[in-house]
């Protein structure tokens, strides 16, 4: 092989690898990402049943109901709208009523949010960034809730 042919082989190999990487990324971006929504968004424009979303807000006061075998029902609110949610599993240690939460999952046909991941704050001074923004938008933001670090629990 001449020097030119060798270089061409090398460049086309690089091209193939890069093209497949780009293809994979584009394919995954159309499918593997999750949008962040607030309870108001969910009520105004419910996501498609198979679409995964992250729902952020506060756990509504008096909404946590613990059922058998780790099933937990609660509601996520941003002060304007409230979405009922259900989660099976062990919740983060600091999952409490009136505190910030980010839940990841899908909204079913009846409007119930089936969460498969719940993120809650991690110490006394933390509020997930997305929740802060959602609360700011709905005017429910109290800056004394700000802080650091998060914790997640997946089912």
């Amino acid at each position: 092989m001449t020097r030119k042919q060798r270089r061409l082989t090398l460049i086309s190999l690089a091209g193939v690898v890069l093209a497949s990487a780009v293809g994979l990324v584009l394919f995954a971006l159309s499918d593997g990402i999750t949008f962040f929504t607030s309870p108001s968004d969910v009520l105004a424009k419910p996501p498609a049943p198979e679409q995964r979303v992250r729902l952020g807000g506060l756990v509504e006061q008096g909404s946590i109901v613990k059922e058998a075998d780790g099933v937990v029902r609660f509601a996520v609110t941003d002060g304007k709208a409230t979405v009922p949610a259900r989660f099976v599993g062990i919740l983060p240690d600091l999952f409490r009523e009136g505190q910030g939460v980010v839940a990841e999952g899908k909204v079913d046909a009846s409007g119930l949010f089936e969460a498969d991941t719940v993120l809650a704050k991690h110490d006394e001074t933390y509020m997930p960034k997305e929740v802060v923004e959602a609360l700011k938008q709905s005017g429910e933001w109290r800056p004394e809730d700000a802080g650091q670090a998060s914790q997640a629990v997946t089912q």
Partner: protein
Amino acid sequence: MIVELGHYALVLALVLALVGGTVPFFGALRGDERLMSVASTTAVAQFVFLALSFAALTYAYVASDFSVQNVAENSHSLKPLLYKVTGVWGNHEGSMLLWVLILALFGALVALFSENLPLKLKALVLSVQAWIGVAFLLFILVSSNPFLRLDPAPFEGRDLNPLLQDIGLAIHPPLLYLGYVGCSISFAFAIAALIDGRIDAAWARWVRPWTLTAWCFLTLGISMGSYWAYYELGWGGWWFWDPVENSSFMPWLAATALLHSAIVMEKREALKIWTILLAILTFSLSLLGTFLVRSGVLTSVHAFATDPTRGIFILIILCVFVGGAFALFATRAGTLSQGGLFAPISREGALVLNNLLLTAACATVLVGTLYPLALEALTGEKISVGAPFFDMTFGPMMVPLIIAVPFGPFLAWKRGDIVAAGQRLLFAFGAAMAAVIIGLALMGTPAALALFGVALAIWLMVGSLSEIAFRIKLGRASLGESWRRGAGLPRSAWGTAVAHFGLGVTVLGVVAATAWNSETIVTLKPGEVMSIGDRTLTMDGFVPLSASNYTGTGVRFTVREGGNVVATMEPEKRLYTVPNTPTTEAAIKTFGFSQLYVSLGDVSADGATVVRVYWKTLVTLIWLGTLVMTAGGVLSLSDRRLRVGAPKPSRRSVAVPAE
């Protein structure tokens, strides 16, 4: 007083870094040996002063001096001594101090242990290293000073986040930083070579041990972090594709590519420009990681208290160093001479393929990490890119890499024979196929995808050892002869085989723990029994806990296998007193290479507890594999060829003048 001395030492270290960044640099430009030789002295002195500074902060923590703001915010007098010490780097300011300490450590090591390095190159390397030090020391002194005093001093500290009160904090950050920051050396070498304009095989020989050292630490650091998250966070996951994990994983991928391309440069003087670029990229990704973690643009377990000025400061450092390096690269890369030729099927070709796949995989991780940030900045839309994205992009990129790895060492330099290599790998191929057939017979077609993964892992493990088996003529010569040949093989050949074998072990662990992971969530009362796989767990009852800084409840379980007691487990719920924080401590028992993992949920009024039980098949192989990979790195590092470096001029027998 000691705290002020520490503060003063920190300022002195900055001054030394400024001197070390300028004097040897001009010395190198003007060819003045006396100015150049200043570099070693300042590098060592900078390290000594930073070590003093770090010791002073550690003293403040151990003595619980709450008049120091950093100590008051992150420590508590009742905390066990170990966590007082590790708490030094369990916060933003202290961990930045550890960062620069390690940066200076690497500078000092280069100054002390590379006597055969040409003086000019050494001066340039150390001055680049000193400039990185200047940037981060300024950052610490201006925006993240751990030595600030509080007046009046509080009576008691606010304590360290309970999740960090773990032996993991003693191990993970120092190892990770040694890896992360160690990449600065190859960066400094690359910049020095670009300024000097001379890059040859000797350069690759000097750079490789440093890169390899950093790589070993980075591998261990990431792996220990993964195990820590696995047992501490209580939900049984070992890798979350969290942006912060990604920001340590990207430099690892780039450093792995760099290790391999430096081999080509060392042996064949080819891929020079590419190797230099990778050295710059690796440290750029480390800096990017530092920015992502410290600036608060991400929500993560690793994010410390966020402060926008810090983010902007690091962003400026990032832009100056990365931008400057790439500008220098753009102007100088064209002047580098071309290296040796090689056919596409050759050792060089295989290493190029390795580099292509690793950098492409690294790029997909980069896209997944930065895309949400870019999208939010541009459109305001908030998304999260999670595991599905990375499974779909990173996973497929790794498959061809794993298939190709065993071929590499069998191919000759310049022009290889892939058919011969394939023949020598027939045994590995057979072993992988046998695993698939046995697996399909036992588990049927639903397990096909997982079995494909297992086959890849076995191919990689057996294939890596095949090279050694071939070279020592295992089975074709007497055992004694094979032993003699094995002992005679260069350590780096063993290192390669062991590291590749370790990768196979990790892949096997990842596949098995993902595919054959079972999980049960039940509510149990004392005396009740649940079963998982072949085992049963009996909840025996509650055990009250109390320690110096927390109280809590443990739940005792007895694990039985076919009626025989095989283990007892005691997961805990803890309530830390300061700050008032509950945490969950999972209980883990290892059976062979697999693990049983139990964590607790809330206890209801009638004494029933939500219990989550996992069976993780072969999960420990994930971390054992990384230990094997590191062992491979260390073996390679101990190779005589690397230690000696370039041929040394014979020591002149000049008598030391009497003083």
